[in-house]
Structures are given as structure tokens and as C-alpha cells.
């Protein structure tokens, strides 16, 4: 990560990524942000040399469980991640130089049978990170907190906001 000059900070614009969506930016003066991850995962992709950044907000682990439903690729980790990787490469990023950070996957109190989306998402991301040989630089997952994140496309920092707590950088 590199220091942000004050002048640069003033020029930064923010692009919002909705649930079940992704955005790519080749503009260094951009924040890619997504609100309230809950049990979803927010995954940032960043090629520092080329300053190409991407952010995916996926809700569920696998599209295979929802066959026949009218759904979007980016709702699921197993269909969303390859799509973002392909879009990053199309935008000029090199996969071998991409660093990935993962956020969210909040979990409700211990229960064996219900409301385990957070845990399922984290398990699936771990599996996919190995399958796609992702260089995962930060895991800010699980816990009982709702995270809002912003990827700084100037330096790859991710600013994390949790209700009633101060922001921090990963």
C-alpha cells in the first residue's frame, strides 16, 4: 500500500456496488464501495502495478443449489468469482499480480441447523481461493458484525466500517 496525498484524497469518487453485483475500475481516483455485507462476502481484487481494482458482493455460496431460478451470476461465489477474474484481466490486470481480500460472512449465534450462510460462504470462498489460486492478502470474516467496505483504487487499501465502531484499514 502507498501513502495517499491529500490532494488525491480530495479527488476520489465513490462507485457503489449492490448486492449480487460487481464493479471494476481502472481509475486510481476511485473508491469501490459496498454497504452492509451481513453474511454475504465482499471480495476485493487489486493489481497494484496497474491500479485495476474490482469488488464483488456475493450473497450465497453456490448457484448449483438454485438451478432453474432466475438468478444473477454475481449472487453466488462459484459463478461470481470467475466472472470478476475474467473482467479484471479484460481491464488490464494480471492474475498473477492480483491480491485478494475478503470481508463479511457474519454469523448468528451458534446453531447447527439454521442460518449458516456466513459459514457456508466462508467455506466456499476458501475452496474457490484454492481452486483459482488466489493470493488472499486479508481475511476479515465471520464474527457478529455487519461490515461496510471501500476499496481504495489508488493503493489497494480496504476501509472497513462496522456499526458503532471506528473505521479501520485492511
Amino acid at each position, binding site marked *: 500500500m502507498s501513502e495517499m496525498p491529500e490532494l488525491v484524497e480530495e479527488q476520489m469518487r465513490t462507485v457503489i456496488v449492490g448486492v449480487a453485483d460487481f464493479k471494476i475500475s481502472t481509475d486510481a481516483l476511485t473508491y469501490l464501495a459496498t454497504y452492509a455485507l451481513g453474511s454475504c462476502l465482499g471480495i476485493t481484487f487489486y493489481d497494484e502495478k496497474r491500479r485495476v481494482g474490482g469488488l464483488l458482493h456475493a450473497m450465497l455460496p453456490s448457484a448449483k443449489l438454485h438451478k432453474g431460478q432466475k438468478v444473477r451470476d454475481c449472487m453466488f461465489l462459484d459463478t461470481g468469482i470467475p466472472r470478476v477474474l475474467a473482467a479484471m484481466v479484460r481491464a488490464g490486470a494480471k492474475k498473477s499480480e492480483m491480491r485478494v481480500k475478503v470481508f*463479511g460472512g457474519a454469523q*448468528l*449465534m451458534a446453531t447447527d441447523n439454521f442460518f449458516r*450462510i456466513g459459514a457456508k460462504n466462508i467455506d466456499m470462498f476458501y475452496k474457490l481461493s484454492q481452486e483459482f489460486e488466489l493470493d488472499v492478502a486479508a481475511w476479515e470474516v465471520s464474527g457478529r458484525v455487519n461490515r461496510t467496505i471501500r476499496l481504495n483504487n489508488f493503493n489497494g487499501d480496504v476501509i472497513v466500517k462496522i456499526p458503532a465502531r471506528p473505521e479501520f484499514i485492511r
Partner: protein
Amino acid sequence: MKSASDLQTVVEMTRSIPCAPAILPKLLKLTEGSSADLGELEMLISLDTGLATNVLRTANSAYFANTQRCESIADAVLRLGSKTLYRIAATTLTGRWLVHPVRGYGWEPGDLCRHSLCVAICAEAFAKTTHLADSSTAYTAGLIHDLGKFALAYANFSALDEIASRVPDDYLTWRDAELAVLGFDSAEVTKILLQNWGFPQNFISVGFFYQKPSEAPEEDRNLVTLIHASKHVATQLGYGVGADGFYCDPDEAALEAAGFRDDEMDAAIPEILATIQRFITPEGELNFR
């Protein structure tokens, strides 16, 4: 604050629960002239927790009530008529909106409305598939299920900070911390508000028991369990969830008894999310166009 008079203070301070002002212009347009579209009015009102609450409360007030109680927004719209509806909305919407982040819960303005709307949409979807309750009743119950927290936030008690600081180290659930710090919990506030406003008993049961549906009266347990399930699914979706959100304890016995299955709830999420995204923009704004 641990006395009953503090509980009364919370109730007194929330004579009018704040609503999202964004819907006022649309509501005004709909109620102009003599040919208001009542179906559209119903939809608009149903999207806002505070407004839906006030409309139902007014429809069941001594002035408007007849022998039959209004249990849905559709009934209330018919009973009140467009002009009265607009008056209620305008009175409720102006000047009472939380325009600052809320201490303790860490809510941004509008968060509880966003979350309640998600619970309502989940409840409506699950009602259609499980037949545990009428879908309109379920939707309304979802909107009003957590009004006590709204009231506590509106009263802006410093004790909310203490509650936040004691979860999870001293208390596993937010409710336990509320009971320890305040001497009462937000569910009790919800119950009193709904009672004062003349809500039917099944809604009062939802407000008071939604965190522990096994303890709800048998005749209301299906609806209460439906809201319990919807609350947890909506919490996982994240919209408007504050510091309190994930510190609640799923009632597995009640969920199993009502026939809920985890895989079926997960399977419903894509459709639920599509409905939510019709009304909440990626920026988190409520969108009523």
C-alpha cells in the same frame, strides 16, 4: 435507568414513530384529486415501518374503528380514504426523522426502516410458501416487529452505549444486555406501544415474543415463528443491521416445529433479494418510484 418511569418515558417520546420523508412527495401525488389509486397507496404505505404503524393505529382508533379491527394496510386504506392517509403521512413524516447516526446501535439514518422492510418482504415470501400466516398480516408484522428499538433509539438513551459495550463479553444476546442495563427490554417497549395504539393481539405477540417464539401463545405462535425466521434471514442479508443485529439467539425448537428448513429458506433468498432491490437502491436509499 432501571425504573418503570423510564420505560414510560420511552413510550411517551414515541407518540409518532419517525418515517422516511422520501416517500412524502410520491404520497402527495397519489392522494391529489379525487381518484387516488388505493392499491398503489397501500403499497407505498406498506414500505415504511413508521407510516404503516400510524395508519393502522389511526384506522383502529376510536374515531375510525367499527366493529371489525383493521389487520392489514389494505383494510386501513379503504377505511381511512386518501385524504386522511395523506394527513397522517404528512404529520408523521415531517420533522421527526432521525437525522443523525444512532448511538449504541450504530445505525445510520433510515437503517431500521431498511431492516424492517427486509423482514417484511421475507415474511411475506415465507407466508406464501409455508402458509403459516396470511401474507399481508405477515408483511405488516415484519414492519412493526422491532418498534421498541426504534423507540429506544428515538429516546436516544446513553444507556444504549452501555448495552453495546457489554455484548458479548458480559451478555451473549443484546436482549439479555438490555434487561440487565435497562431493567426492561425493547420487546416490552414494542408490546406497550402496540397495546397503546390498539393493535390486534397477534401483532402484540409478534412484538413481544419474536425473539423467543416458543414462549408465544399457541394461537399466535405460527405468525411469531414466521417473523422470527424472517428476522434472521433479513439479518443475514445485512440491510440496515446495526450493532445489535447478530446478537440474537435462533429458537431452533420453534423453527423445527413450524416446519422451517434451512435449505428451503436459503433457496428463497434470490427471489427475496430481487424484491428488496426493487425498493432499496445499492446506495441504501428507499426507492418508491
